[in-house]
């Protein structure tokens, strides 16, 4: 399999007047094309920092990020970033929201628009194309946000707790939807989450980070050998509980 993202010895220190905060240390990771990788770790261990570095929004204090062998120096069209909240803009219709990325990249072509329409249709939002975000349910909004990322046609998707704003049942359903979309569109995904069950149910590999400064503590390959795997199906596999408990212990969750 082809390596699409390569992290070499990433280290990150935040500077502030009160001192230096070492957020990440010595992170080495390879992500393969089409793979779904999750990153879990204690609060404040540097997960978001890591995604920001991969996306090129933040320069690491040491180490390199390579995407398809090229060094990352700034935001790239190859990478799409999904944030915790959908951040659909109130003052834009769904269609206008979906086209935001293309507008910024100055590439709103008729074919790009058609692609946007195609995605909206495929994922059940075409009727809302000219509605405003306030008229959509939480799950629909999250889907619209994903489509906004997909229309710029990135190869790699970064998801930073993209589902944590949803309530539990909706979250389960959206997990299934988004997983489905990502697989259908053949994207590589790197997802950060607080939810161990979510990470296991969706990914091919779960990376556990240590407390700050975050380093890779362990890597869990998830292979439930399911046909037409979906997150919900994964949750019902007996092995699921074992993996869950194993990661739970590694994370050493405290109240």
């Amino acid at each position, binding site marked *: 399999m082809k390596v699409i993202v390569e992290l070499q010895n990433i280290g990150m220190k935040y500077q502030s007047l009160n001192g230096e905060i070492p957020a990440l240390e010595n992170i080495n990771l390879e992500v393969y094309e089409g793979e779904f990788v999750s990153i879990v770790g204690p609060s404040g261990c540097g997960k978001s920092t890591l995604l920001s570095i991969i*996306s090129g*929004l933040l320069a690491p204090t040491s180490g390199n990020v390579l995407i398809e062998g090229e060094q990352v120096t*700034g*935001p*790239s*069209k190859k*990478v*799409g*970033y999904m*944030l*915790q*909240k959908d*951040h659909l*803009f*109130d*003052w834009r219709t769904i269609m206008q929201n979906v086209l*935001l*990325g293309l*507008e*910024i*990249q100055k590439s709103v072509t008729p074919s790009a628009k058609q692609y946007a329409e195609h995605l909206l249709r495929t*994922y*059940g939002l075409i*009727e*809302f194309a000219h509605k*405003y975000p*306030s*008229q959509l*349910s939480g799950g629909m909004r999250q889907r619209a946000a994903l489509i906004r990322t997909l229309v*710029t046609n990135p190869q790699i998707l970064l998801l930073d707790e993209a589902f944590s704003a949803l309530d539990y049942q909706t979250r389960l*359903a959206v997990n*299934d*939807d988004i997983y489905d979309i990502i697989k259908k569109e053949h994207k590589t995904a790197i997802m950060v989450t607080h939810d161990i069950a979510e990470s296991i149910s969706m990914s091919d590999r779960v990376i556990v980070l240590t407390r700050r400064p975050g380093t890779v503590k362990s890597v869990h390959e998830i292979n439930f050998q399911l046909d037409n795997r979906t997150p919900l199906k994964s949750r019902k596999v007996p092995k699921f509980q074992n993996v869950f408990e194993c990661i739970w212990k590694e994370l050493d969750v405290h109240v």
Partner: protein
Amino acid sequence: MFSLRQKDNSDLVPETISLEHKKYLKSVQRQKLLVRFTQIMILVLAFGLWELLASLKIVDPFITSQPSRIIKTINTLYQEGALLHHIYITCLETIIGFVLGTVLGTVIAIILWWSDFISKVAEPYLVILNSLPKIALGPIFIVWIGAGPAAIIAMTLAISLIVTILEVLNGFLVIDKEKIKLVQTFGGTKLQVMTKVILPASLPTIINALKINVGLSWVGVIVGEFLVSKAGLGYLIVYGGQVFKLDLVMTSVLILCIAAALMYQGVVYLEKLLITRHRE
């Protein structure tokens, strides 16, 4: 799994109105009427008492004026054709003042948002200027800018500009950093962050600044007219004082009250029009 569910509460029962609901609606109606009635009663009582006390010379109508005298004064002014002219002048000055204040304030806020350095340098000055009662500058303005409409507009700007800058800048700064990050993830530049997020997201703030500015502009215009003017409601107040016509003073203040309230409502209406459109 994609049920196209609209938001809740649309499925209210329209069919037959239940007895309870009828009772509820009636009690709401009664409450509303009572409120309206009390409001009007207060108004009627206040003006009635004023008229009565003045007629009985318990309060001195020469000093406190009197509703009937005010009506007479309005009538006289109207027949002379002067009334509308004075109202027009003052309203025009106010509108110029608050539009200018809002535009300039927003532009300066954009500059401060753009350059961290300028904003840091400007900070203590803004704080001091903000706490300064700008009214005190009136006499200086006239000396520096000269008597005339320019001095009135300057007074208005002095009063409203700093507040607008701080208000709008604050609006810029409370915008969710993640929204800005979103634009940056698409490779957006600072200018794009400004035009795609900051400005549209700040529309409510800017309109709110407009709302504050209407009020401040009225203050500026009135103070300005107190100092220099040949027409306007502020002028009438000063003139009324000069020749000891308290009726004229009271009349002008009353008209002012109404004009200011109407203009404020206009901006509130504008706000509704611009903002609630997308946010039903």
